[in-house]
C-alpha cells in the first residue's frame, strides 16, 4: 500500500533530499591541530594540557576533539598497571543540536554516556595503550553542530586528534554510517545519513543512536560503523533496529558502511599528510615526517 509510505529517502530519480546519490558521503573536512598545543596542565582552560586536537565536519555536523596525555592518572584507583587508562568524555554545546533545548550534562545524559562508551571501545581497539602503563590518555569531544552522525564524526575527530598528539595507533579508526529502507519492495541502501534520514530510519530525533523500540517504521536500519580500513577490521557496529531481512540484509548494509569508511579514510589520510607537510615545511626540511599510509 503506497499510502503507508511516509518519507521518501530517495527521490524518483535516486537523489537524496540534499542532492547526494545513495553512495556518496557528505562533504567532509578535517583540520588537525585546531587548537594550539600547550604543556601547561594546571590551568582550568579547556585547552589546558592539550597535546593534540582536530576539528572535523561531516556535512553540517561539526566536532572538535582535544586529546591530553599521556599524563599522570590523577587518582591512584584508576591507575592500571599494564596499560594506560583511556578516558573519553563527550559534550554538546548549547547551540549544537538543533531542537535540543538544554545543554546536556555529559555525566548524566544517557545518550552522551552511551556514545562516549562506544567511542572508547572503538578507540581502544587501535591505541597502543600498553606502551603507557600507569598513565592516562583523555579524549574530550565537543559536538559543535549536529546534523546527524555525531558519533561517527566524533570517532573520526578523535582519531585525528590522537594522531596530532602523536599517540601510537595500530591504524586509523574511521567511522561512517549506512542505512537501509525497505520501501515498497525496493531496497534503498544509503551511506552517511544526515539528521533527516536518521529520523526517518529510527523515528526519533536521535542525536546519534535512536531510542530503541521508539517507533520507527519497520524494515529500516541505521547502522553506524567504525573500521580500521587498512586492516579491514570492524571495531564498532551498532544497530538498534529490528532486522527483518536476516543476516544477509545486515551484511549488505555493513558492506556499504565499510566502503563509506574507506572514503572517510582517504580524506582523513589526506588531511594528515597535509598537516605533516605543513609541519615539515615549518621545520624547513630538516626532519623527515613519517606519514601513515
Amino acid at each position, binding site marked *: *500500500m*503506497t*499510502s*503507508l509510505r511516509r518519507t521518501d529517502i530517495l*527521490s*524518483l*530519480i*535516486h*537523489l537524496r*533530499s*540534499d*542532492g*547526494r*546519490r545513495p*553512495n*556518496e558521503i*557528505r*562533504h567532509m*573536512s578535517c583540520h588537525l591541530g585546531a587548537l594550539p598545543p600547550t604543556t601547561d596542565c594546571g590551568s582550568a582552560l579547556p585547552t589546558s594540557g592539550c597535546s593534540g586536537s582536530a576539528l572535523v565536519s561531516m*556535512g*553540517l555536523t561539526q566536532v572538535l576533539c582535544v586529546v591530553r596525555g599521556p599524563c599522570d592518572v590523577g587518582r591512584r584507583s584508576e591507575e592500571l598497571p599494564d596499560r594506560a587508562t583511556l578516558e573519553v568524555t563527550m559534550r554538546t554545546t548549547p547551540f549544537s543540536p*538543533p*531542537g535540543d*533545548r538544554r545543554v546536556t550534562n555529559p555525566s548524566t545524559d544517557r545518550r552522551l554516556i552511551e556514545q562516549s562508551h562506544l567511542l572508547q571501545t572503538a578507540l581502544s581497539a587501535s591505541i597502543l595503550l600498553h606502551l603507557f602503563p600507569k598513565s592516562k590518555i583523555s579524549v574530550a569531544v565537543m559536538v559543535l*553542530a549536529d*546534523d546527524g552522525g555525531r558519533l561517527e564524526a566524533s570517532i573520526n575527530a578523535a582519531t585525528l586528534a590522537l594522531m596530532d598528539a602523536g599517540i601510537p595507533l595500530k591504524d586509523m579508526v574511521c567511522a561512517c554510517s549506512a542505512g537501509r529502507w525497505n520501501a*515498497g*519492495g*525496493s531496497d534503498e541502501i544509503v*551511506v552517511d545519513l*544526515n539528521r*533527516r534520514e536518521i529520523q526517518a530510519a529510527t523515528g526519533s530525533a536521535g542525536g546519534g543512536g535512536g531510542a530503541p523500540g521508539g*517507533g520507527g*517504521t*519497520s*524494515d529500516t536500519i541505521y547502522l553506524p560503523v567504525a573500521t580500521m580500513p587498512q586492516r579491514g577490521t570492524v571495531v564498532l557496529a551498532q544497530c538498534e533496529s*529490528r532486522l*527483518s531481512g536476516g543476516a544477509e540484509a545486515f551484511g549488505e548494509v555493513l558492506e*556499504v558502511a565499510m*566502503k563509506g569508511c574507506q*572514503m572517510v579514510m*582517504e*580524506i582523513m589520510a*589526506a*588531511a594528515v599528510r*597535509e598537516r605533516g607537510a605543513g609541519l615539515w615545511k615549518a621545520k624547513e626540511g630538516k626532519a623527515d615526517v613519517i606519514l601513515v599510509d
Partner: protein
Amino acid sequence: MENHPHLVHIYRQLSTTNTMPDNLFTTPTRRFHLTRRGKILQTTTERYLRDDLGYGTLLLPSKKPNATIAGDVTELVPITIDTVDMLCRVTNGGGTLVVVDTNVLLHHMDVLEYIRERDGDNHHEGGDDDEEAIHSIAAAVVIPQTALEECRNRSLVMYRRVTDLIRSSSTGGKRKRSFIVFADLHHVDTQHCGADDEESKKEEEEVRKINDENDARIRKVAYYYGKALYNYQRGRTYNSHSDEDNRNIEVVFLSDDAQSRQLAIQEQPQQHNNNKKGLYYTPRSMREHVTLLQKQDPTLNLLDMVAQFHIPPAAQRIEYYPPHIDSAALSLGLKTNRYHQGVFRSDRDSYSSGYVTVRRGQERVAVLIRGGRNVNRAVDGDIVAIELFAVEEWLASADGQQSPPPQQQQQQSAKATKEEHAGIAPETAEPTLKDMDNINEELPDETGTLRRPTAKVVGIIRRNFHKNYCGSLVSVDHATTSDDAHPHDIIAAKHECEHADGITSTVVFFSIDSRIPPILLRTTQRERLLGMRILVSMDSWPSDSEWPLGHYVKTLGMVGTKDTETEVLLQEFRIPCEPFPAKVLACLPPPDYKIELEPGRVDLRHLPILSIDPPGCKDIDDALHCIELDNGNWQVGVHIADVTHYVEAGSAIDLEAANRSTSTYLVNKRLDMLPSLLTTDLCSLKGNVDRFAFSVLWEVTPEADIVDVEFKKSIIHSIAALTYQQAQSLIDKPEKQCQNDIQAGAVKRLASLARKFRSRRIKAGALTLASPEVKFVLDSESLNPTDVQAYTLYEANAVVEEFMLLANVTVAKKILRHYPTLSILRRHPAPNRSMFDSLIQKAKTRGISICIDDSKKLADSLDAAGKSLASDPYLDQLLRILSTRCMSPAQYFCSGEYQAKDWHHYGLAAPVYTHFTSPIRRYADVCVHRLLAAAIGVAPLPVFLSSKSYLHDLAANMNRRHRAAQLAGRASVQLHTLIFFSGEDDGGEGGGIKEEDAYVLDVETAENTEPSFTVMVPRYGIEGRVRLSHLATEDPCLVRDPVNFRLSYKDEKSGKVLASVAVFDKVRVKIWVKSSRDHRELVVDLIEPVRLAKPDVVSASKSKTKKQKTKK
C-alpha cells in the same frame, strides 16, 4: 557500490586544496519553525549542487531483471540525459519540449496523461509515423523538481499521479512521449540565487515570495533547456549547411499563471538573429497550447480535458455567491475563533445542504449549513472555514424545520425528486461520523432549549477537487422547455451555450452522486457525449458562476446498458477492477506446481472432511469434519484454506491484496481480491483433491462442552463439496438409514452440536437479525435477471455459520493472548439510543416495547414482539430488519487502539471477535492467519504486522473497502432491479410492472408537506416512498397523526375515516419503472387502501386484474 567518478573528482580536489569548489557546495539553508510550546527552532539543512545532472533524468527499465522476493521485476533505473544530442534523441529529433509549472501538474494531469489510442476510425491514413497526427501533448515533458515538490505539498493525490505517470511512461510499449525529471534544486546551472537580501516580514508576503521564487526557478529551467537547444541547433545548422534535418525542437513553458508568463518574456534576453521569435522558449497557457495542437490536428479531442478557471465573459456579470475570504484574514479569523474549520459533508441527497464538524473544547458539534448561498461553493469533502450564525438563527430542535428561503426552492425541488427514488433497502445504518465519533448535533441556547447550530461557509481552506465524478449530460431541446420540465433540464437549458472560438460549447453535466452539484463543461464534442456515461473532474468555482467548472476525462459507455452502469458503479465506489499486474502474477506458483505434504504440516488427509457451500460456489474457503474419538468425545475440525502459504507477506501479491482488501460480489460479476488461480483453484478446498489448510481442531463432548483446542497447519483431502440443500437432506435423513454413511453421520453430529452452541449463544444475548436480501435468477446468456427469489435458509446454513463463529472467536482469543496489542479484531459498537428512538416510538404504536440497554435485552424484546405479532410472521422479521438498520456496522480495528471494553461485538454478544474463516476473499483473515501462525510458532510474524501505525492504516483501509464493496453490491442489485422491472419479456402489458404486498416503514406526518410514506416490499427487498401527490397538502380531509404515525382520509361531511395508513400496515402497491431520456427510476404507487391511492393507478390495476380474470 561501483565507481562513481564524480564523487572521486570532488574529493581529489578536496585532498589537495582542502576546500570545496564553490560551485559544488552551497551554504546551508536555514528555516525557522515555531514549536507548539512557542519556542522558535532553527533547522539547517544542506543542499549539494551537482554538475552531473545533464539535461534531466529519465526512468527506464533496467536491462537485467532484478530478482527479488517478489519475483522478477524489471526495476526502473534513472538514466541521466548527458548531452543535447541525447535529449534530441529522446524527443525523436523534433516536436515540442514542454516545461511544466506547478499549476499544470495540479490541474491538468488529465491532459498530461492523455495518449491517443490507436483506433482506426479517426486516425490518419499515415499510421503511426505520421507526423501530423498528434498523440499527446508533447514529445517530451520536463518536470522540474521544484514543481514536483510544490505539487507534493499541495496535493498528495496529484503527486502520486505524477510519479505514476513518470514511472509508467517509460514502460508502456511504444513510447510516444517521455517524462523528464529535472532536479533543478541540485543542478549547478539552474541554481537560483533568489533575492535573499530582502527580508519581508509579513506572512502573506512571505508566502507570495516563496511562490514567486518557485516560479522563477521553473522559468530558469525552461531558459536552460531553451538556451541549450538553441545553441545546439544553431551550431548544427552552421556546420551542416543542409536543410534535411531541420526539425527544431521547440521549448514551451506551460503555465496558467499569466504573471509568470509575462515575466518569462521580459526576463529573456532578446535574440537578434534569424530565429523566428527571438526567444529561447515560448510561454503558453495550457489552453493556448492545446488549442494550437487542436488546430494542427482537428481529430485530437484534448481540448475537452483542459481545466477551466473562468467562465467566458457574459453580457452582465452576476455574483451568485459571496466572495471567499482570503487566506490571511481566514487564518486570523480561525485563530480568534471567529471562524471554525472543518470538513464539509453534504447531506446524502443534496449538494445545497450539509454539515461541518467543529471542535468545541472537548466535544465536537455538527454544524448545519443550509442553502446554496450559505454552502457558498463548498463541495463534499472540502475543508472549509465557517462562521456561526447568531444563536437566534439556529434551528429549533429536530422537529421544527423552517421553510426554506425562496431562493433555494428550485434546488429544493431538485432534491425532492431525488429523494423519491425507490431502491434496494439498506442492510445496516450508515456508519455515520456522528455515530462513530460521538458528535453532538444540538446545543442548548441561553434558555436551555436545544437548538441545532447553523453557519455559513466563508472560505475554503482546501479543495477536494481531485476526484472524478461519474454521470452524464442532459440533452436540451430548446424548443420544449415547458414548466413541468425536470429541474435538470432547466439548469441545462440555462447554461448551455456556444463559445466564441467556434469549436467549443458549454454543456451541463449531472453526476450520479447527488451530493455533487451540476458541473459546467467546455467541450468540442457535445453530440458525441450525449447519452453517454462520462467521467468528469471539477476545476474551479468562481463566484460569478452559478455552478462549478470542470473538464471531461473519459467516456465510459452508453447510459443504461448493464455493462456501462456496472462500470459506473465500480467507479463510483472506487472498487479496484483492473486486472492483476504482471508483478502480482509473477508471485503465483508455477503451472506444474503440486501440493505435497511438507515438513511442519500435519497430514489430515485420512479425515472425512467435507465442505458445505451455496451451489456454484467457486471459492470454497472452509471445510468441516466431525468424528467420534475412542474416549466417546467428538473431534470437530474447521479447515480454512491456507492462503498465506501462497501469499508471502510483503510480496507484490500481498500488497495488492492489502490494497483491495476484499472481494466484491456484484450480481453479474465477482471482483477477486486474489488472482483466480488462487481463488478458484489452489486455495479453494474443492472435493477430492489435496489442499493446504489451516485447521482448528476441537475435542468436544457430545453435550457440546469444549475439552481441548488445537491449531494446526495441515494438508487435507475433502471427500465432498456439498451444497446447503444436500447437507440439509443429510441432516433430515432418518437415523436408521445412515448407519454406515460417513457424510450423513458427520453432518448430523455437526448439526446437533451447532444447535447446542447456538442456544448457548442466544442465551448469552446474541441477536438474531435479518436482512431483506433477495437473489436474482439470471439468464444464462444475457445475464439479465429473469426472476427474484428470496434466499432459502436451511438449517445447514446455520450449522456452517455456527462453526465459523466458533472458529473466529477461538482464534480471536488465541491471537489476543499472544499479541494483546497487535491483533486485528472486529468490533460492533453498541447502538446509539438516538438511532433507535424512532423505531421505539413506532413500535409503541403497536404496543411493542423495545429495550436496547444491552444485546440480551434487545434480543428478548424482539422475541417477545415476535410472539405478540404472531398474526403476521413477516412483521417479526421486519422489526429485526429495522433494528439492524439502527445499528452501525461492525468494524475492523487493531486491538492496541481501543480499550478492552470497546472490543465487544454487540450483535454476537462476544467479548472478542475476528475474521479468520474467509482468507480467499477478505484481507483481514489473511492478517489473522499470519498472527495465528506466529502465535503457534510455525512462522515468524512479518515485521510490518508489528507496527501499530501500519495496522491502523490497514484496518482503516479494510473498513473503507468493505463498506465500498457492500455499497457497490447493493448498487448492483439496484441496477438489476431496475432492469428486472423494466423488462419487456414479462408477457403482460407495460413490461415488468408488478403488484405486491408491502409494509409501511415510515409515514411523513409533518404539516405542509406532500403526504407520503415509505414502504418495504419483502418479495423484492425494495424500499420506496409512496407519494400521494394527487392529494393537496392542505386538503382538510387529510389528517396527520404524528404520534401514531398515521395518515387518514376522512369523509368531508361525516368525518368518518375512510382510509388510513399507519406504520407497519400492510398495503398493496404497484412497482414500475418510469423512464425518461436520461435515466430510469423505480416508482412505487399505492393500490390499496383504495381511498388513498391515486385514482388512475387504481383503475389501471383494476382493468388489468379484470383482463387477467377474463383470460383465465
